[in-house]
């Protein structure tokens, strides 16, 4: 009797008449789930305005805008994401990719407002009721890009502790591609690079496997890529947005990869510098350090005939005579410099300005002069005993090593200093000790405690791997001398190096003492400049500040308008600043010479 049943059965629906309704009584008060993707929140102080969220948003819902109270500074563009909820599709990809993990979503989804423009706001800056809500979408436990750096192949300590072979081996193609892939192309790093290199662009060139294009981008701002690809202080990496939730991109190694992969004989073709039209003007450059080379390079590209005067037998300045070979092999320095020379730049070696030729003479013979003479005089601690002949300056020893001269290597060595130069001499001496005695006995001591030692972390680690003892936090007070021989270094505990105002003003505890045995001591506490080539009359006309430093304008032009200066004597402290100075000076010199006629 199915038919009858079919008529009666539907009436069972009536039983629901007496059931509790299932509807939500106050829908506006219903809370979203814990993971709900509602209106955005942004921890505005954590956000760095990198714009990665904007890049991934396929709806173009995000604009980066300036926000009151947020300063633009290194590592922070000062911009913050503003979201247009007329476009947002609540996908939360912006949250998942946020480099700092500052962006998230609340579980708030009900918001009624008559003005559509209110639905366009900067989360975190424009206060909203859900700003403090705990719930809502947060970046899940996966990564949309790889936060971990591709490991660099390096020589093991035992393979390297006796020789000056380059330690860092460079990326293979696969490694470089993988590392370049991690970049989010935000460009925050560019402002922090002293030369404002086009970092995201050349990393992109690596991804596209277009290394010639990469090389062109490098040379736009940096004519020493092999060198910088090895020993640059890579300030860019300290602000890398990817570094906030992982390791920063190995910008330096990627630069080296581009330079390494392009053979030197093809440089001129790739860079389009086979023929350069000459303008008949001449510029003299004192010193073949990075600043001088960079100035010469950019001037040569503009058609100037450049002559570099160099005191030493080879070019490169501190890059050759300071930085040890195991960090920067000489053939790589040559590769960069030879290319610059191929543009018609001439170097007069073993020629000291102020001795062999006067500065005034250069002014007569050339249309302008650039001086990048660097810091080559060692500074002494001036503690008792420091005048002994077995107490040396680091830079002098490093120069002698590079010149290939024999230097004294004693059984027990103490290095005073905690910067990179101190580590360079430590690790060089350790190698030489190891070669000579088959063992290492070197102590490096600094005022600074380990956490604030100025040397790079890797340098300290690698130095220790090479059996150097690095003992930070001691102030040297006396070198003990017996029969004109060095016996060792007396030190006391250093409590702090800087005072409240951040000025250098070390405090010691004289009661905690220590003694480091030594028969040779190396001082590495900084270098001074030798400006003896500036004659008295020139010095009189040269504007200096109250600390005796030469004042230059933004083009590194001094108050004597034909004299431009740069590099360590003006700014420092590293190669890339020298390069940037030289580049700007080249532009300044060009302006100056053009305006002269």
């Amino acid at each position, binding site marked *: 009797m199915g038919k009858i049943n079919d008529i009666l059965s539907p009436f069972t629906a009536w039983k629901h008449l007496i059931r509790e309704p299932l509807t939500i009584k106050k829908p506006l008060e219903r809370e979203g789930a814990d993971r709900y993707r509602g209106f955005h929140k942004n921890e505005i102080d954590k956000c760095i305005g990198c714009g990665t969220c904007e890049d991934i948003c396929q709806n173009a819902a995000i604009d980066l*805008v300036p926000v009151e109270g947020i300063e633009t500074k290194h590592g922070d563009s000062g911009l913050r994401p503003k979201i247009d909820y007329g476009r947002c599709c609540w996908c939360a990809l912006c949250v998942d990719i946020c480099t700092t993990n500052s962006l998230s979503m609340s579980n708030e989804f009900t918001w009624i407002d008559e003005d559509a423009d209110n639905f*366009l706001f900067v989360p975190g800056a424009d206060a909203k009721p859900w700003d403090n809500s705990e719930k809502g979408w947060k970046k899940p436990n996966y990564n949309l890009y790889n936060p971990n750096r591709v490991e660099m192949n390096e020589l093991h300590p035992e393979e390297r502790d006796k020789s000056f072979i380059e330690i860092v081996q460079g990326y293979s193609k696969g490694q470089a591609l993988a590392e370049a892939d991690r970049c989010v192309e935000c460009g925050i790093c560019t*402002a922090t690079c002293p030369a*404002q290199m086009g970092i995201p662009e050349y990393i992109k060139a690596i991804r596209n496997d277009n290394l010639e294009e990469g090389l062109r981008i490098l040379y736009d701002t940096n004519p020493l890529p092999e060198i910088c690809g090895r020993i640059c202080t890579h300030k860019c990496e300290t602000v890398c947005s990817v570094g906030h939730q992982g390791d920063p991109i190995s910008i330096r190694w990627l630069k080296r990869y581009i330079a390494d992969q392009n053979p030197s004989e093809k440089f001129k073709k790739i860079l389009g510098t086979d023929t350069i039209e000459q303008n008949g003007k001449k510029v003299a450059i004192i010193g073949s350090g990075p600043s001088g080379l960079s100035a010469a390079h950019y001037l040569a590209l503009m058609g100037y005939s450049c002559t570099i005067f160099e005191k030493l037998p080879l070019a490169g300045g501190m890059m050759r005579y300071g930085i040890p070979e195991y960090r920067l092999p000489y053939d790589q320095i040559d590769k960069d410099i030879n290319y610059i020379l191929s543009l018609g730049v001439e170097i007069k070696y073993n020629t000291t300005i102020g001795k062999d030729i006067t500065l005034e003479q250069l002014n007569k013979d050339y249309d302008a002069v650039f001086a990048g003479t660097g810091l080559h005089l060692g500074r002494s601690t001036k503690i008792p005993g420091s005048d002994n002949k077995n107490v040396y300056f680091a830079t002098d020893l490093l120069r002698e090593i590079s010149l290939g001269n024999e230097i004294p290597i004693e059984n027990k060595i103490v290095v005073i200093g905690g910067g990179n130069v101190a580590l360079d001499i430590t690790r060089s001496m350790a190698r030489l000790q190891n070669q000579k005695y088959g063992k290492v006995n070197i102590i490096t001591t600094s005022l600074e405690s380990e956490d604030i030692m100025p040397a790079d972390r890797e340098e300290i680690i690698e130095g220790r791997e090479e059996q150097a003892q690095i003992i930070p936090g001691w102030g040297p007070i006396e070198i003990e001398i017996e029969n004109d021989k060095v016996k060792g270094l007396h030190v006391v505990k250093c409590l702090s190096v800087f005072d409240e105002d951040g000025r250098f003003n070390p405090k010691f505890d004289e009661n905690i003492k220590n003694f480091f045995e030594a028969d040779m001591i190396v001082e590495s506490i900084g270098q001074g400049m030798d400006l003896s080539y500036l004659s008295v009359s020139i010095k009189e006309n040269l504007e200096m500040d109250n600390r005796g430093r030469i004042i230059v304008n933004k083009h590194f032009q001094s108050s004597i308008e034909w004299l431009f200066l740069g590099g360590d004597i003006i700014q420092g402290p590293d190669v890339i600043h020298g390069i940037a100075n030289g580049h700007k000076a080249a532009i300044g010199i060009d302006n100056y010479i053009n305006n002269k006629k």
Partner: protein
Amino acid sequence: MKEIINKIEKLYPISDFKQQNDKTALLTVEQDKAVDLLIYMQKFEGFKHLAILTAVDWIENNQFQLSYIINNPELKMDLILRVFIDREKAEMTSIHNLWEQAATYQRELKEMFGINFPNSPRVDKPFILEGWDGLPPYRRDFDTKKYSEDTYFPREGRTKNNPVEYMKQKLYPDE
């Protein structure tokens, strides 16, 4: 699948066979024999089901690729049959007699890519884009961004800043 390929290799001008995965294979066939092959596959090799007929614009080669995805329900195998046709003379024999729904696919291809299928029912009748007289929009040279910029207007009150440019302005404006 390999067996079938061995068989049809002798009969039809095919190339580029690839077993993409355990249920999908790829094959290219010359344009003038493509419909013959489809008939053969449908009638004799059990590829009874047409899942997709669509096109890919290889504008750089001046070609359209027509992709017929056919399925053999017994073998449980999909075959993506590719046919490259001239982009200038974008025309192909209709297969609405083999599969009824092909008429709809072909009508869409005509509208979106400008590929003609003579005699296919209603092939010239607008399908989705009534009143459209521009370039067939799924062609690569139709620029959707430009179209939307020309047709719509940006929301007021929105400005963009590039972090690199902005930081330059703020931190090193003269360089």
